[in-house]
């Protein structure tokens, strides 16, 4: 077990190093001089040179890479060119929108998908199953940003129940702020729920045929207790994998949804830092998302191998 975890950790580290190198190289070739963008095209040559030096752009690339990673390792980030605050502060502010958004979406999609998927599995081949599977096909085909636009049209514009866009900030009160996240979270959640419902159905079906389920029925346990106690608990293993991976992708998926609702989240930050060539911000945000994906993958793999020793050999 320990050797497996150590080996997986090594792979994780190598993946992160290669990914961070890739980010650095990509941003190196990004056209556009950040100093020129800050000062405007009429800037004096010596002012430009001074700002480049201040931004650290005059030093060779390998030095700047090591400074970047070394800084992150010791817990310091660069200063944003456009916002003039440390990147960590900026990211913290934005995560206060994106993390709750992704979490609500994850909870909503799980709460919808598990009962619906179990319902379909227990009615395999009957009308209920076909209805659920049909709806989930439609759910997977609907682009989340289209769903978002339609929900604005219906629930914000026509009915006036929710704000159409923007985020008032957590200091305006928990309920007001949370209310502004309802439509965005639903838009993120529904297509994910459609996928998760299918996964739930498949893994519940796989478990229903197991010997211990037959034993549970044979010893006279109530069908409901067999379903929730034995079947669901075992079916949860593959579902946890998908739920874990979904969280990482919900964070990234929020880029489009944040654009639809004009929410000041991490996705908007990526978008703005690209258009403003704020590379100091961009590299940290992209790396943060990558770290998220890689770490979630790692945790899922390790959890898997603890539950199922066969997974250790397969990896």
């Amino acid at each position, binding site marked *: 077990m320990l050797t497996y975890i150590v080996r997986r950790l090594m*792979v994780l580290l*190598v*993946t*992160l190093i*290669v*990914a961070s190198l*890739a980010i650095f190289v*990509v941003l190196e*070739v*990004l*056209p556009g001089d950040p100093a020129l963008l800050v000062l405007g095209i009429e800037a004096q040559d010596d002012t430009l040179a001074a700002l480049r030096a201040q931004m650290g752009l005059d030093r060779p690339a390998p030095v700047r890479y090591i400074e970047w990673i070394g800084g992150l390792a010791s817990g310091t980030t660069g200063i944003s060119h456009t916002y003039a605050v440390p990147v960590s502060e900026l990211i913290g502010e934005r995560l206060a929108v994106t993390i709750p958004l992704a979490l609500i979406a994850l909870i909503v999609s799980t709460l919808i998908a598990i009962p619906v998927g179990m319902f379909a599995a227990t009615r395999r081949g009957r009308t209920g199953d076909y209805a659920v599977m049909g709806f989930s*096909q*439609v759910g*997977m*085909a*609907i*682009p989340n*940003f*289209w769903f978002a*636009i*339609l929900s*604005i*049209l219906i629930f914000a*514009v026509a009915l006036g129940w929710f704000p159409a866009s923007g985020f008032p900030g957590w200091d305006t009160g928990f309920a007001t702020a949370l209310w502004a996240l309802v439509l965005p979270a639903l838009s993120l959640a529904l297509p994910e729920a459609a*996928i998760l419902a299918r996964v739930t159905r498949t893994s519940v079906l796989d478990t229903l045929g197991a010997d211990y389920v037959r034993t549970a029925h044979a010893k006279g346990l109530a069908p409901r207790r067999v379903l929730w106690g034995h079947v669901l608990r075992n079916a949860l293993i593959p579902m946890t994998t998908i739920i874990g991976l979904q969280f*990482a*992708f919900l*964070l*990234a*998926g929020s*880029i*489009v949804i944040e*654009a*639809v609702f004009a929410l000041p989240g991490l996705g908007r930050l*990526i*978008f703005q830092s*690209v258009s403003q060539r704020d590379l100091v911000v961009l590299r940290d945000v*992209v790396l943060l*998302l*990558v770290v998220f*994906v*890689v770490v979630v*993958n790692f945790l899922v793999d390790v959890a898997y191998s603890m539950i199922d020793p066969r997974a250790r050999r397969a990896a």
Partner: protein
Amino acid sequence: MSDVATSLQADRWSRAMRHPNFLIGAVLTGLLAAFALLSLVWTPHPFDAVAISERMQGPSAAHWLGTDHFGRDIATRLMIGARNSIVVGVVAVGIGMLVGVTLGVLAAARSGWIDEIVTRGSDVVFAFPAIVSAILITAIFGPGAVNAIIAIGIFNIPVFARVSRGAARQVWGLEYTRAGLAIGKSKAAVTRDHVLPNIASVLIVQATIQFAVAILAEAALAYLGLGTQPPAPSWGRMLFDAQTFMILDPKLAVLPGLAIALAVLGLNLLGDGLRDVLDPRLRAERIG
């Protein structure tokens, strides 16, 4: 053709005809392709014919689906949008398959360090959420349809590398590949003669699903302003424009989304059906 092959084909055909997902998917995908092809030779109006006096009209004999905020014919723009989506899907999946399958079967045939590099390389590309790498790529090369397609294609490379590597390794474990080596065929020849034909079904199914994923991704990029640039029509950009005017005219927000959803639904159902028809044992992964 031998009797076995004919009966296999007949069997597949009868399975296809009894498979509702396959039939619905084939019809929807067929319609998508038909509208796209038709737009090459004929559209109801020129796609950029602006007529401000006729803006945001309802459906009529002249404009079957009405007009947008510039008075342009929506049916025309949806048809060209269909063509756009097909090009995106074909090229993005093509890039992914060409590079990904080559790497995947190479990794399966050679194993060792080549396998290690392909596997780890896929891990690194997968670590970047697709939309993030697309934003980075369009940031370097500029926004536009071509760059968006390349970005989606790059994301498809590890998808196909993984799927083809896994499937090819299974084939390499079978006796007939060993037999091929034993009679003196090279690994490349065995890959060409035995491995590729046997993993073709998996790849076809995966390609259908990635086609749908590519259409969704391009629509999202176009919505963000990173894909097809106006005035060229694309479904994603039409939705972006609609957001400003949908209070005055809701159909602007409904029609392009419906087109995307139907195209994606058709391809997903077709992929589902193809999987059952080509090989009932297969289970394709949905990645992306």
